[in-house]
């Protein structure tokens, strides 16, 4: 950055933008997009062809978090970093504060992605959705994010443009909120380098997680993309933004309301109903704030619609914004309890998120890249025709994908709840569950087709970009602009806002980045605190259940294996108070059942049946055979086989430490149990192995992982004796014996 410092008002400065780091982020977006979507295609195949689960490290349960992390944090993440680094410099007419911090951010982030790609297939996971990465990586994320934030805010501090444009508001909200969400949801106690337990359990853990999960969607996939839209759309359309007032109102309402809506992911669970009610009504109030972005985007195009015929950038943006509008209507709709009763745990959710991720995030990112790449590399786009192919193929891909998932989700949801005239479930038991799955297998193939189309379109786009780069000049110097030295920095020139009325007073705030940031932070903290704190402060929120006991050491080990294998990706552990579920699975889950669940494992999708009450429903041998080869016990099952569980020896080395950590978190393990954890586990394993032999099973399983998993599965849901008829009356009410603490 070179400036001609002569101090005189109106002197011209030469500002060079750092575009090298933007180029790096753009390339990373492309590469990780392809990787993440390839993994998506693979796991889509695994859902219909169990043989596509290629061994221990590449099962659906381990690849699914890799897919979501790669697409969200690697693909969308690099895209928003590219957008923020590129547009912020131009919007405040200042080079990014530090080149070094920019490159640290870039390489740090790529390192995090690579370590995710290594650890997730290894089964190192916290299991909480979009927050799976174990604590050392989570710390690295926090460090990189803080460096990014410093780099960004210092750039604002040195800005030459007094007022912050709406895109920057959204960037501020993103940076602040993601930091808060990430840190709070990752508060864990480590057990060694590769394992940790969250400091929250059960209901509280679920609330924190979905406060995080929902707002990761809000502040990682929505606000930065709105910011991106506000810069690149008017640029590409060459039109002024439709309404400044709408920008103000929808920004503040969106930021304030979004944060409350998390509990709509937990309808009908053992999270207290008032929390779900709050989540639902705030989700509905969120509809118009979300649509404010769509309206401002689409109406900015008035007078520019003819350009859609020729301009691929605008095509991507228009379809992207339209999918945003669809998804942000669908979201509030799905948050209505009675709709959620049908949609939750089904593919409807999968259709919803992919319409949003492929349509909104994907197309906004690609639209931006078609605008950016020729400019960043100072050349012309290689092929307009291929860009159009990318666009159309991608659009068809999204539609096929989403329609397949909508029909699959709705059909299966209806089948799960269907009763015949004799009052029996039409598809009861595991047999009936498989039946409902067979009904949607054609839709799974169709989804694979849609996914493949989109993936292929991205490959075509990638080819187009690579060919474009080949025609780029060798030297790509930083672009330089001349900016008049800002007068407003001088005391005497402070603007006089005394006469300003109405909306224009917001202008004042736009000149104070620090105040703006503080107010944004307050806006997101209000909902965070008021929505969640009662669960931690009110003892009555989680009535204690006397009969709920901590897991035995062996069961705990089994639970950690369940976590390692990612079983939670396909199996929920939360029977909802809905008649079809109570008839199918047994007593619905109570808040007090989760107090020793570190972390909660309620899941969000039932590709297989709920396991929350599976304890005692099958004998040990059934589980052994089923894990070895699911189709030997459940014909037509689509579950991957887990034969290594029968081969691998249990690693109980850290068991004692794990118990110790849990006891520090409030699980009442006594010293004797902790100190003899391994011996106690081995004894229980010996008993179970014996019983397996008695049932006609193989010898010598007592030191194998399968025994621990069986112990855990047989324990699941049995603590409150679900078959006992007195259960509902006892534990459902608020007047339960809830004297003691629930941590």
């Amino acid at each position, binding site marked *: 950055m070179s400036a001609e410092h002569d101090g005189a008002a109106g002197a011209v400065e030469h500002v060079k*933008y750092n575009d090298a780091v933007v180029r790096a982020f753009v390339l990373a977006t492309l590469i990780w997009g392809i990787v993440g979507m390839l993994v998506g295609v693979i796991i889509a195949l695994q859902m219909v062809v169990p043989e596509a689960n290629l061994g221990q490290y590449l099962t659906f349960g381990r690849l699914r978090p890799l897919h979501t992390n790669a697409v969200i944090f690697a693909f969308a993440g690099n895209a928003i970093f590219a957008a923020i680094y590129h547009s912020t410099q*131009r919007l405040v007419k200042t080079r990014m504060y530090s080149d070094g911090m920019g490159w640290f951010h870039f390489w740090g982030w790529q390192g995090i992605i690579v370590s995710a790609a290594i650890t997730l297939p290894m089964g190192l996971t916290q299991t909480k959705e979009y927050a799976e990465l174990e604590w050392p990586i989570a710390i690295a994320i926090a460090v990189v994010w803080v460096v990014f934030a410093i780099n960004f805010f210092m750039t604002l501090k040195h800005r030459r443009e007094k007022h912050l*444009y709406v895109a920057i508001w959204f960037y501020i909200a993103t940076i602040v909120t993601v930091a808060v969400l990430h840190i709070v949801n990752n508060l864990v106690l480590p057990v060694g380098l590769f394992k940790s337990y969250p400091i929250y359990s059960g209901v509280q853990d679920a609330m924190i997680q979905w406060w995080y999960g929902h707002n990761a969607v809000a502040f990682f996939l929505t606000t930065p993309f709105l910011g991106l839209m506000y810069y690149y759309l008017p640029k590409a359309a060459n039109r*002024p933004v*439709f*309404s400044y007032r709408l920008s103000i*109102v929808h920004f503040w309402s969106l930021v304030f309301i979004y944060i409350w809506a998390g509990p709509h992911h937990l309808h009908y669970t053992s999270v207290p109903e008032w929390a779900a009610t709050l989540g639902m009504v705030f989700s509905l109030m969120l509809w118009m704030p979300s649509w404010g972005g769509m309206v401002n985007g689409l109406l900015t195009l008035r007078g520019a619609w003819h350009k859609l015929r020729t301009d691929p950038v605008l095509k991507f943006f228009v379809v992207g914004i339209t999918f945003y509008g669809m998804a942000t209507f669908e979201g509030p709709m799905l948050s209505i309890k009675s709709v959620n009763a049908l949609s939750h745990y089904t593919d409807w959710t999968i259709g919803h998120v992919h319409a949003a991720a492929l349509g909104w995030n994907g197309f906004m990112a690609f639209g931006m890249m078609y605008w950016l790449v020729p400019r960043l590399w100072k050349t012309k786009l290689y092929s307009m025709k291929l860009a159009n192919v990318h666009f159309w193929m991608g659009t068809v891909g999204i539609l096929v994908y989403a329609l397949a998932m909508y029909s699959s989700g709705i059909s299966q949801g209806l089948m799960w709840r269907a009763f015949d005239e004799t*009052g029996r479930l039409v598809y009861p038991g595991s047999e009936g569950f498989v039946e409902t799955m067979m009904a949607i297998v054609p839709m799974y193939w169709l989804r694979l087709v849609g996914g493949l189309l989109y993936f292929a379109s991205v490959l075509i786009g990638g080819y187009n970009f690579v060919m474009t780069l080949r025609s780029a000049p060798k030297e790509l110097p930083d*672009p330089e602009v001349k900016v008049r030295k800002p007068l407003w920095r001088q005391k005497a020139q402070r603007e006089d806002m005394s006469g300003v009325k109405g909306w224009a007073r917001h202008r004042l705030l736009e000149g104070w980045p620090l105040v703006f940031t503080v107010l944004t932070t307050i806006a997101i903290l209000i909902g965070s605190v008021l929505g969640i704190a009662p669960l931690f402060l009110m003892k009555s929120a989680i009535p204690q259940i006397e009969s709920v006991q901590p897991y035995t050491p062996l069961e705990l080990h089994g639970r950690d294996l369940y976590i390692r294998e990612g079983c939670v990706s396909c199996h929920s552990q939360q029977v909802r108070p809905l008649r079809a579920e109570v008839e199918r699975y047994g007593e619905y889950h109570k808040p007090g059942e989760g107090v020793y669940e570190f972390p909660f494992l309620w899941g969000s999708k039932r590709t297989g049946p709920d396991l929350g009450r599976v304890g005692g429903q099958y004998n040990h041998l059934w589980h052994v055979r089923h894990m070895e080869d699911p189709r030997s016990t459940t014909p037509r099952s689509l579950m991957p086989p887990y034969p290594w569980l029968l081969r691998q020896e249990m690693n109980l080395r850290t068991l004692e430490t794990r118990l110790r950590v849990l006891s520090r978190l409030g699980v009442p393990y006594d010293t004797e149990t902790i100190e003899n954890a391994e011996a106690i586990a081995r004894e229980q394993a010996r008993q179970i192995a014996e019983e397996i032999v008695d049932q006609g099973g193989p010898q010598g399983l007592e030191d194998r992982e399968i025994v621990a998993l069986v112990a855990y599965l047989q324990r699941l849901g049995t603590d409150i004796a679900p*078959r006992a008829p007195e259960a509902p009356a006892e534990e459902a009410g608020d007047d339960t014996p809830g004297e003691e603490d629930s941590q």
Partner: protein
Amino acid sequence: MTDERTSLDPDREDIVLTQGDTDQPLLDHNYDGIQEYDNPMPAWWTWLFVATVVWAGAYVILIETGFIPKYEQSLAAGLAEIHERQSAAAASLIDVDQAFLAALSGDAERIADGQAVYNRVCVACHAAGGAGGIGAALNDSDWIHGGTLADIYHITDVGVPAQAMPAWGNVLSQDEMINVTLYIETFGGVITPPAEDAPADAADAATEDAPPATGDGPQGGPEGGDGADPQADPDSDDAEEADEAEPPEEESAEG
């Protein structure tokens, strides 16, 4: 303010601000060439936003004052309806006893259907031909829970929770259970009862396998059932869901 766009794309026209009569640009807003109009928010947008806020308040009041049912209330109502249907259906079930099954023994059509049922749901644990595996063998005269046709039918119906044998009465129709019993007979292990020893249909209260549901079992209100079958015994409680059926030979279940 310099616009670096021009250096990248010299052909671009400048932003045109003429939009319509009402659109007024905010002239002091110019960010890297991006301008903004001073348009009001669309009225439909504002009013829908207000409407959702009002609705939200109303919903919270209605659910907290009991006008909208909460989870437990909805569940109880839903289960009551299902249980009513179940007890109505239970009233029309036929009483399957030893004599009834013996009379159907050897019916080729039923056996063929029973085989299909067996291959669908039984074979995974009891293996082809009843050789046994995860579940007990069904092809010899060594029976844990009794080996008469009536016993087999009964165990199929209510299951053995302690040994993880599911209660197939929840899954299969009565016909399917009869047919699979007749198919199992073809394995050759089935025992003929010594004398006229039909299982007593006393309704003792071994409620172990009642579903966790609230409400009383199907015994509650037998009225409202459809007309009884010729062979139907209205007192039978072989109803699928909650049959506290007779365990005549052994105490089949325990927690």
